[in-house]
């Protein structure tokens, strides 16, 4: 399982994400993002949504993925957070996933969007690393 750490960014919120493979990178980035909003332990997996995205490249797909999850989190009658992610398809330009989560009473933080700020997915000997900046 991948790891994430919050790092300093003057105006916004940034996460450094490390993962063992591509699917782990996308799942860890999503978990890291929701950790900025809620206590992950308190989120149930009672709610199921599907996500299907196409993008120009892997970085765009990652940004689109996170923004899609933010949209799903804010667009229901109550706020929601997602904590489990299964990928039926995950290619550099296409993703199809089932995401599980639950309703939450509130968010700690306000994230407008995941951005392309200095975004680069780098392959390492251990897997992949990237830094994500969220506009707040």
């Amino acid at each position, binding site marked *: 399982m991948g790891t994430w750490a919050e790092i300093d960014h*003057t105006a*916004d919120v*940034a996460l450094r994400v490390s993962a063992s493979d591509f699917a782990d990178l996308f799942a860890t980035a999503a978990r890291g993002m929701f950790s900025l909003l809620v206590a992950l332990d308190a989120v149930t997996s009672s709610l199921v949504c599907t996500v299907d995205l196409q993008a120009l490249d892997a970085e765009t797909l990652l940004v689109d993925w996170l923004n899609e999850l933010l949209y799903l*989190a804010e*667009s229901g009658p109550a*706020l929601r957070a997602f904590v489990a992610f299964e990928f039926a398809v995950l290619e550099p330009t296409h993703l199809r996933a089932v995401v599980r989560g639950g309703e939450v009473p509130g968010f*700690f933080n*306000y994230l407008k969007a995941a951005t*392309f700020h200095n975004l680069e997915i780098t392959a390492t000997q251990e897997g992949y690393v990237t830094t994500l900046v969220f506009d707040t």
Partner: protein
Amino acid sequence: MTRKQDFEQVGEFTWELPKQHDGRMQAPARIYGNAEVFDLAFRDNSVEQLVNVATLPGIVKYAMAMPDVHQGYGFPIGGVAAFRYDRGIISPGGVGYDINCGVRMLASTIHHEELQPYLESLTTQIFQDCPSGVGGKGAVRLSENALDQVLEQGAHWALQKGYATQEDIARTEDGGRIPQARAAVVPSRAKERGRPQLGSLGAGNHFLEIDVVEEVYDAKVATLFGLRQGCVVVQIHCGSRGLGHEVCNQYLRVLQDAPQRYGIPIPDRELVAAPVESQEGKDYLAAMAAAANYAFANRQVLAHFVRLAFEKVLAGKISDWHLQQVYDVAHNIAKVETHDVDGKLVKLVVHRKGATRAFAPGHPALPEVYRDAGQPVLVPGSMGTASYVLVGTPQAMAETFGSCCHGAGRTMSRHGAMKVMRGEKVRSDLEQQGVTVRSGSLRGLAEEAPYAYKDVSLVVASVTGAGIARQVARVRPIAVIKG
């Protein structure tokens, strides 16, 4: 890598990086500020972002950073750049996610000592009547048709529905309606997010504040703006909510391959752009204008509910509780404007990202009542500190396309701010200073603590020193409401 010594000091408060510094630059870059502010610009990626803006095609005069500059995405926050309408670009990175985030100020004749016995209950009433927080639903629910009207008519929709007065409309930038707006090009997902949120403050750095006019620097102009020493004013800082964020998101996606298609060299993919007159450019301009209109209507509806709260709490206790609008300014926007460039009037798209329009006396876009004085420029400080009312100058028209700073500007990350002090402590410190606080999030209070920002007085001294604005009055908060 751009260094301090690459800049030339061309005025006491103006620093210029010549175009020759980087072969890609199409125009010089300028930073406004005293030596301390200039140094602060190098603490993060702001200057590199400013240089990137200067490489974009069709840029006119300079890429500019106001003294509240800090790094953003694409443009730095505090960035101003104008592009020729006929052969320049438009970029969502020059506007930001919160399209037409802005500030509205309402003035009263209530002396703060007269208000003091009712301040707690008034703050609570406003907190109840003006919904705030992440994803918060607004005071008004809109049908699909009504939302389309809001998107195309902006504050004029609010006027028709009884949420505004004619005077409010006149005292709002562009009369609260940007004419290029087209509801048809606003993505359906943006509309879905916008329908339940009109009349809501949101979260993050947005706030509603009750302030006292602490010092008047220009009595004549302050009187004209309705500002009286010792009297209470209200500031509303918010934007286009989820609708604006979604417009930005969707058009960043739409414009992904536009630079390649139109041969626009962009140094950073956050600066995706299209020619203003391309279909993509026109559509983004129209959708961005529609989101801006939503924001004007949003602040108007919030102003209505603030007025009702004043009436509920103060009627029968204070002789005149009415609030008169001073002005409403946008500080995240791209606008089609005509400016004098080398002696010729040229149609431009002026991007102001974390920057405020500051038109000079005599400008035809100003309401008649302010035409001789100039445009009010509202510069909120960080939470719990002073805010300023400035006025635009001819020098701003000559140098900055009539633009000025928008606030204090962060110097510390939200993460860093939270490590310094907990929200409870920030709240108790504010209350000890005599500031009543209502907030849905203690974490939000910690993130927005005053020590995370520059001293707004330093920023204001820089713009007034540079001559791009003049001071009219300073206000200090007595109550803060945050999401």
